[in-house]
């Protein structure tokens, strides 16, 4: 049975304004820009909403409704910072999260090792979101996205409203239909029939609703009974993350390059770690001095071209989520590089990013951590001694008549490639 947490908070644009101007917290604030612009209101503070300002209306109308309001432009960078902070905070609580402008969702299905009960788990999520936002959210928990959202609306800051399994219909029954995400025309027709709350619709036969309103009628019926089944549209991490280090002067010394590579690896590793991400591939470009747009070295057999600069790319044996795990691969890429001119800048790019914090080694399959360590060691050995020095044999499917065709040598596939491991004598 799915369980979803919904945390409702003021619009991130409004929170960004309050963060920079705490003195405006009690004042009517309208986010969207100057009132003379023909733009809609993005967010309004409670004082402005009390004066009649609504998100979506024209700024000019908002000014007429609340002449004393402070009009500010949307701080997009501040909003993204807040969003990233919420994502990072909730990533530590739940494996699947979704963060919007005014609400965030987290998956509470199953059980959590640290938080034994759903209430404690939800409270932890609420605390994490509050710490990231600086504002306590109103939290609701339900069996679906819609029920959780309604529960959060019925909740209050510093409170968690839980709708237990099987109680969804009873909880939704008194709610007005205008809160339902449905076609307003259908809702208006239902209202003319005297069906203005969820309980009245839930009591109807689904077939009758379908005859009158088609699929929309069935969807409203499912929503009214709390069995819509909609879950979390999980946040997807960015696909790549890169760091570039421009050197003070062109460097030809490999030891100095190694030092710079270590520095850039530390930076990228910290970013991965703070974002709870793990990289599946790693690319290194050494921009050489002399060309107008710079040239690069190190494009090996698995190289590519990024932004016009050839980049040596390596598929990591196991996803790397910090500097320590990235460093052996960076060393290998540096070893492959053959700079023909002094290097003026380094660019390190982590690709195929995935959620790193969701990977709990040794939890389900014993020996995962050991397999990862062995896979990293194999890559280090291959970097140092050659690709053919550590191999795995695989029997050929069609060996033919020649004995030497009975098997093929192949590079160990790392953690994902199977192989028994972890057992101890």
């Amino acid at each position: 049975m799915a369980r979803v947490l919904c945390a409702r908070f003021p619009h991130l644009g409004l929170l960004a304004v309050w963060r920079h101007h705490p003195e405006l917290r009690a004042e009517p604030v309208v986010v969207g820009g100057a009132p003379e612009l023909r733009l809609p209101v993005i967010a309004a503070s409670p004082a402005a909403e009390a004066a009649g300002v609504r998100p979506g209306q024209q700024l000019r109308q908002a000014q007429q409704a609340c002449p004393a309001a402070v009009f500010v432009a949307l701080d997009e960078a501040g909003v993204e910072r807040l969003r990233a902070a919420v994502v990072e905070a909730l990533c530590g609580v739940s494996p699947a999260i979704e963060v919007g402008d005014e609400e965030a969702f987290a998956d509470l299905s199953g059980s959590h090792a640290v938080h034994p009960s759903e209430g404690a788990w939800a409270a932890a999520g609420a605390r994490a979101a509050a710490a990231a936002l600086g504002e306590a959210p109103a939290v609701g928990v339900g069996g679906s996205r819609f029920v959780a959202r309604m529960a959060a609306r019925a909740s209050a800051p510093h409170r968690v409203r839980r709708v237990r399994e099987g109680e969804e219909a009873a909880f939704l029954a008194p709610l007005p239909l205008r809160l339902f995400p449905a076609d307003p025309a259908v809702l208006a027709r239902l209202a003319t029939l005297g069906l203005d709350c969820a309980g009245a619709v839930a009591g109807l036969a689904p077939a009758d609703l379908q005859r009158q309103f088609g699929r929309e009628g069935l969807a409203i019926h499912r929503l009214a009974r709390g069995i819509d089944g909609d879950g979390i549209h999980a946040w997807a991490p960015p696909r790549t993350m890169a760091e570039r280090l421009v050197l003070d002067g062109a460097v030809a010394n490999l030891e100095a390059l190694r030092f710079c590579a270590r520095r850039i690896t530390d930076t990228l590793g910290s970013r991965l770690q703070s974002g709870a991400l793990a990289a599946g591939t790693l690319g290194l470009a050494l921009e050489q001095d002399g060309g107008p747009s710079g040239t690069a070295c190190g494009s090996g057999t698995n190289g590519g071209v990024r932004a016009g600069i050839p980049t040596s790319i390596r598929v990591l044996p196991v996803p790397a989520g910090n500097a320590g795990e990235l460093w052996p691969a960076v060393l290998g890429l540096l070893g492959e590089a053959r700079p023909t001119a002094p290097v003026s800048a380094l660019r390190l790019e982590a690709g195929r990013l995935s959620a790193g914090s969701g990977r709990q080694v040794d939890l389900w399959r014993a020996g995962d951590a050991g397999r990862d360590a062995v896979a990293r060691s194999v890559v280090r050995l291959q970097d140092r001694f050659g690709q053919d020095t550590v191999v795995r044999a695989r029997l050929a499917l069609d060996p033919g008549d020649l004995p030497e065709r009975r098997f093929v040598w192949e590079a160990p596939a790392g953690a994902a490639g199977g192989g028994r491991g972890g057992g101890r004598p």
Partner: protein
Amino acid sequence: MATTSNSLAEAISALQRRYGTAAVRRGGDPVPAEAWPTGLPVLDGLIPRGGLPVGRLTLLSDGERSPGGPGATGRLTLLQALLAIASRSMQVAYVDLRGSLDPGYLADHGADLDACLVVRPPGGAIGPGLAMARTLVRAGVPWVGVAFPSGGGDRPAPWEHPLTALGEAAWAARAVLCIAVPAPLPAPLAYASSLTLGCSPIGWQEAHGDVVGLRVRLGVDKSRVGAPGTSAAVLLRYPRPHAVGEVVGLPALVTAAAPAPVALDDPAADLDTARRHTGTSGARDVPALAG
């Protein structure tokens, strides 16, 4: 008296700082050696503590050869059979310093090739090979087999330091380390070994005129984990088209370090001896010896 004790402690501490903790140590009860049971009754019964010592070095070396006997001693077959057994339950590494590994032969012994890492150092160099094995052991590979090349016994051993490091890593990681080495035994290996099993060929096992195996007498030539001197005969049955290779005990040829007089022509007495010294029935299968 207290002053003397303090001076002694200081001297020991200084020596250990300078030469390492292994240079001077107090006597006492030896650290009990864990064992990895091979699953082969005859071998587990032969080796003190019932299996290959964990965290220590086991050598499979050539024993005595009789004139006119088989040229092979079976040490590599035995190593690969043990590796195959280990690969069914854990990740293993095979350091092929001889460059002669046939993975198909490993598979014929029932090895899980997915669990086998094969290390082939450039040029078959011993030092780098041992260093690579050490890296894998430190990373967590719990079973490492090394096939040593021939001709290393009478030369200086530049790989002595990597061997020591490998031994320390195996001890720290509680890994099983098994090295098959031909005669003559290099001095560093002979010194570092905790258990040395000598493989002395007895004769070929034949069926219908074909060689199907090698009969070998395994002797515990050196043991730091128990009393040396015991020996047992095994049949290294080679893989056949529809059967895997296996190691089978031959109880009729088991002898002990201080054996009671046994009449070799009395099968019942031989079987009793085997049970007495191995603690088992001696073998899973007793083939009829040819010749």
